[in-house]
């Protein structure tokens, strides 16, 4: 069994979140930086409002990230959603400090434009001095795109990790709602796939390409084009050995979900990509730490088996929920010298049913993952998983 940084770990699920915040922020002298995205997702304020409802007297500042997807992005069709979210945001913040930072997802200097959102996100906080005054940091990824939050969280973790003593508490929050996810359709898939900034995993080093590449795509619904693009990227180097291990969410809220996914992707997985059925693995849908542990074990097994070939490189991709993606982020962060995150960016989003999506907001479930700070300095962390 390999030593894992986040085992044991602390995950707080929906029902327990409010009491946990009350307990945690009761302590005097706490100062919180809350990071969230300014977007059209109706879950933008979900975590923040739950927090402020539980702890109205909290000493909090917000870092609000406004991301520009480009003039042609279909997300611009939902500006009214953004306006509604901001109105609600201002109401719940009640004049507390907000630092608004704008970043571009694409650099238009070239004709086609380059994806730079991940680098720009990592650049939002340049040094530890910018966050050293906060005892706690919460990054809410509910309304941030994958192309941003991986590198943003990676950077914050790195900065926090540089301080060996009195580490700040870093939490990730996400409002999980499969129904809302299914109503938001990603479109305009970017052609140039890249490993996210800081999560390159040294995969693209020419000097090490004799090491086979193992790809773990975590499957979610209606992502056939994303997965095909990802597979093309994995296989682009014809001389490199590769293996594809699709990951299905199970156990899951809908127990038939993984079966449905297998049916949906049958042709792609078995005809086009010629995947061996024994390569398929499962990970729990609602516990990112469990995903982290399962993936870490699978990776350790591969590394051991392929030791004779000087090991292997690992690429992770999430085409599923943001909650699971946290698990992949932790694996890639911990094993940065050989695990990378391959992200398939979308240029915009479509909401399939605008009225329905608003009504579904309150059905969301809040998950809090605690990544650094007090529980990891103690022998027996509370709420340990």
């Amino acid at each position: 069994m390999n030593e894992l940084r986040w085992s044991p770990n602390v995950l707080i699920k929906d029902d327990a979140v409010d009491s946990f915040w009350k307990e945690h922020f009761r302590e005097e002298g706490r100062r919180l930086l809350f990071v969230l995205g300014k977007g059209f997702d109706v879950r933008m304020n979900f975590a923040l409002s739950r927090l402020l409802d539980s702890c109205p007297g909290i000493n909090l500042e917000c870092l609000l990230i406004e991301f520009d997807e480009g003039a042609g992005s279909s997300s611009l069709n939902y500006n009214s959603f953004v306006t509604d979210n901001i109105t609600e945001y201002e109401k719940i913040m009640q004049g507390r400090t907000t630092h608004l930072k704008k970043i571009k997802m694409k650099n238009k200097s070239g004709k086609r434009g380059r994806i730079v959102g991940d680098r720009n996100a990592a650049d939002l906080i340049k040094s530890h001095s910018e966050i050293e005054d906060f005892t706690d940091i919460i990054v809410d990824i509910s309304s941030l795109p994958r192309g941003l939050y991986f590198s943003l969280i990676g950077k914050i973790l790195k900065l926090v990790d540089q301080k060996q003593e009195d580490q700040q508490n870093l939490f990730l929050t996400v409002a999980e709602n499969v129904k809302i996810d299914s109503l938001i359709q990603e479109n305009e898939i970017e052609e140039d796939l890249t490993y996210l900034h800081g999560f390159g995993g040294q995969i693209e080093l020419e000097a090490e390409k004799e090491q086979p590449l193992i790809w773990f795509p975590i499957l979610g619904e209606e992502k056939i084009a994303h997965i095909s693009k990802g597979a093309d990227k994995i296989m682009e180097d014809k001389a490199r050995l590769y293996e594809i291990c699709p990951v299905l969410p199970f156990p899951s809220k809908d127990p038939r979900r993984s079966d449905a996914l297998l049916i949906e992707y049958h042709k792609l997985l078995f005809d086009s990509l010629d995947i061996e059925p024994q390569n398929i693995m499962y990970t729990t849908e609602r516990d990112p730490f469990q995903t982290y542990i399962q993936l870490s074990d699978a990776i350790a097994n591969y590394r051991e088996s392929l030791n004779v070939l000087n090991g292997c490189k690992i690429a992770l991709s999430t085409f599923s929920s943001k909650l699971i993606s946290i698990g992949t982020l932790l694996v890639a962060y911990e094993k940065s010298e050989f695990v990378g995150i391959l992200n398939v960016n979308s240029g915009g989003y479509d909401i399939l049913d605008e009225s329905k999506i608003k009504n579904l907001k309150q059905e969301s479930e809040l998950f809090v993952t605690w990544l650094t700070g007090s529980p990891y300095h103690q022998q027996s962390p509370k709420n340990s998983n």
Partner: protein
Amino acid sequence: MSDAFRNPFKLRNSEKIDSEIGFLRLFSPLALEALVQKHRSGTLWENVLLIHSSPGGGKTSLLRAFEPGSLTTLWNSKSASDYRDLFNTLKGIDAISKSEVKLLGVSLPCTRNYQILEELNISEAQKKRLFFSLLNSRVILSTLRAACRLKNRKFPEGLEDIEFRYDNSDNYFKSLEVPCNGKQLFDWASNIEKDIYKTIDSFIPETEISVEGHDELISLLVLNPQNLYFRGKPLCSRILFMFDDAHKLSDSQRLLFKQYIFEKRSGANIWISERLEALAPDEQLKSFEGRDFEELNLENYWNKNQKKLKEVLRNISDKRAALSSEEVTSFQEYLIANLSETDANEKLSLAVKETTDKIHELSKVTNKFDEWIGALDDLENETLLNRAIRLKEIEILIHRNLGKNQLSFDFPMPIEELDKKTGSEVTKAAALFLSSVHDMPYYFGFEDLVKLSSFNIEQFLSFSSEMFEAMISNKIKGDQIILSDREQHDIIVKVAKHNWKKLRTEIPFGQSIRRFLTGLGEFSKTQTFKPNAPYAPGVNGFAITPSVQDKLYPEEQWINNSIYQPLVNVVSTCVAYNLLERHTLLQGKKGQSHTVYYMNRWLCVFFGLPLSYGGWRHQTPDQLIKWIKK
């Protein structure tokens, strides 16, 4: 992974098939024909060759044939009849001989994080140095790895057997003592690559960049057969550097790279494969005018050599079918090539009746067509299909005649006039009208599949894979494997509809592109299905012509006008994603050329248009942009 596949047509690129032997089994020597021609004209080697095509056009497969893995595998199997043609073709262009593999092909994908160097917060000069250093390190690493493969030596152990005899007369190497062995050279290049990688990918990079930088692509200058030895003997007779997907470099990197290569004229063999962009002010190519380089546009080549393309695709499909585990071992012979008159009997009878009535109706007011109508009785001996087509032809020609404004006497036109006016294009239009009005299969047969490829092998496979799937299903059901005209037509239309559905979600500017293509499709349909078929067999393309007031300005004027930016985005994306095919045609005044954008052939299917080329109309940028904004 197994050697047999249920539906081998679904394995989308031949380069994705695992083993070299698997790749060679599916690779057609005819795909090398364009290179054979360049070899004959003495322009293939010691030269720079730009290989252009759209995605899936076969660039990467072409390059893979020259990699050491493919060449050594082929050389080892040279006596096997399956590979004899390929062996002889490569022998003919001097890549391989009976006694050895002469060529060291070095594959250099340009997809790996070069672009991101542009985002570093450093000066332009530093960016250039890092870019060249990264390229140099990767060229060296790839060459050494390829050398081990060529000599069948295990990597990295085999590096010790390679000697790099360059004497550093140009002082290119500062921290490496040369001559040295392959291992030392590899380690040196590897360290450079890792240092740059750290600079690119660290969350908290070191503030000072201390990478050994280069202002030149020294790797292309020093890696030559004179400097590389294997166990005391020359490693190879020739080195080929193959830069794949060069369009993934940033614009400025691409310019730097090409500028260097064209200006240096080192005599190295350099192939650069890239996607040709549309409506990009072609500064790059223009700035290299007069330079000595060769160009190979794969689509253009196949367009000019359609018989060869058919042969290549037949070859590919036969080889794929042979790999199937489902015992459907052939492809073309299971595709019915003609309309089944038995199945279409009722519809054809109806068509004959309706068209006859229409002809009589049209000619009521004149006796010009009396002789033509009189000849209708002679058609009784013809098959129902031929009669139906002939009647449609007559209907079209009557419409054409009635539409003319010139004064003419109402003398009956002789039957010879009818024969004279009926060209093959009118016959094609008649067949199209017939199938469109009476819902008869139109797209079927291997010939149509070849046309549907739009000169793109991947696209051919995407249609063929569904055909093959249906053949497998027929076999499992115990039916005959052969696909009827109706089955084929329905499969083709289904794939086209599926492709259309994907447009909105999968392609940048997806919504605008759908609106634009809908505009183009509707316009083309209107033009095509006019009763007199003026552009027979039909329209499926356009050329952008500046409006009257802009005619004095060159094309770049409107391209650079921000008002037309959405149009530039849409058209260039359509070309990049192979939705529009860009053809250059010589037409009109002497030497006058037009850039014509034809719909990809699957779009012709989607809009029910013919698969032929030649039918295009002039459009002004203003007209085109209206389609986007509709």
